């Protein structure tokens, strides 16, 4: 059996949890809405120009992950092609 005092305690906790739920969820959404506003601002401040030089960075960053992924992709494609050709 659940005692009276425990019922009180649990219902207090539940009230707190409900409050947390409301405030927490609103805060998350509010925060993200503000971030959306900030991003719209960024887009205005730093527009994309089609002819802007490609990132010297990214393309210049020869990350192992990327090279590995691209290598794998090329390989797979290549195998696929090879297989298809062998059907002819």
């Amino acid at each position, binding site marked *: 059996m659940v005692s009276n005092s425990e019922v009180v305690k649990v219902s207090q906790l*539940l009230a707190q*949890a409900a409050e947390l*739920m409301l405030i*927490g969820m609103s*805060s998350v*959404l509010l925060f993200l809405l503000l971030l959306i506003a900030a991003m719209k601002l960024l887009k205005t401040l730093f527009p994309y120009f*089609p002819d802007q030089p490609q990132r010297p960075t990214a393309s210049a*960053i020869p990350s192992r992950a990327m090279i590995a992924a691209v290598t794998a992709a090329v390989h797979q494609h290549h195998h696929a092609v090879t297989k298809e050709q062998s059907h002819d």
Partner: protein
Amino acid sequence: MDSLQLLWQTTGIAAMSWGQLAMIGVGFLLLYLAIAKKFEPLLLVPIGFGAVLANIPLAGFTEPGGLLYYIYAAGIDTGVFPLLIFMGVGALTDFGPLIANPKMLLLGGAAQMGIFVTLFGAIALNVIPGLDFSLADASAIAIIGGADGPTAIFLASRLAPDLLGAIAVAAYSYMALVPIIQPPIMRLLTTEQERQVKMEQLRPVSRREKLMFPLAVLLLTLLLLPSATPLVGMFCLGNLMRESGVVERLTKTTQNDLINTVTIFLGLAVGSKLSAEHFLSYETLGILALGAIAFAIGTASGVLMAKLMAKFSHSPINPLIGAAGVSAVPMAARVVNKVGQQANPQNYLLMHAMGPNVAGVLGSAVAAGILLALVG
């Protein structure tokens, strides 16, 4: 004969308790899931192995002087390991798809509903005799719904260290189960027609925008929610190093050997919390049940929010992408893509789902900050 008897007493067979045996079994089960089923192997291999080691009698792995004791003390007690992982994840994340379509942040926000409903649910479970979750416990459990491992470990290490093992295992397990948990919910809440919606190609994003994005996130977080800055800040540091293009040496190390090393240690330390006394309890069953609910609610909230947004948007939105808002990067985005292609084989949603997907990481880190501020 003394030595012989001593030798027998020092065997594991003689010294092992049933609880330890059971937990070693759990460890091997996690290894099986990681290796044979490819469930988040990068984490579950070290976690499973750590669980086995931690439950070996007489080996003292988790006592002062033992390896797992030191790793846990150095990296989890201090919160350093999850934060370094977050830095590495930041250095690996391309925010381009999100920047191209900032509204996607709302999906990453809606999916956090799973966290807060679960918090309420965990407290409600206290009516069951034998369960007695405090608000801090409930918050740590609820973060499983964030579908982000380091966030869950960081928050649990702060709010409920005793539950850390169960929470981390639940988080990574459900992340691995995303391809099983999410599709039925996604199909239930959408029509075939909705699932066939093709979305417009994402606009190109300038290098400057990508560079400014982590700084803007950092600034907003420190102004509004400083308690979220450990997680969000380290994430932004990793991403800033990546996008700045001036510290490629550091970025490369952060993306590879640093995150790999920390992943091994983090996993072992989490595994060390899978001891019989903490894990074999009704609380663990409660945590596992709540975690599943959290994932389901998060997925549903994301999809429903996407449906709502589709109503008011002038460009078409496929509501499936809302499911990616739970994070679980990149698994959830892939699942979205797959379910989308089942409805329309020409529909490529992967890039569109990456926006809500990385937004979900931010969203749960923000939610963790709120819980730390209000409960911690």
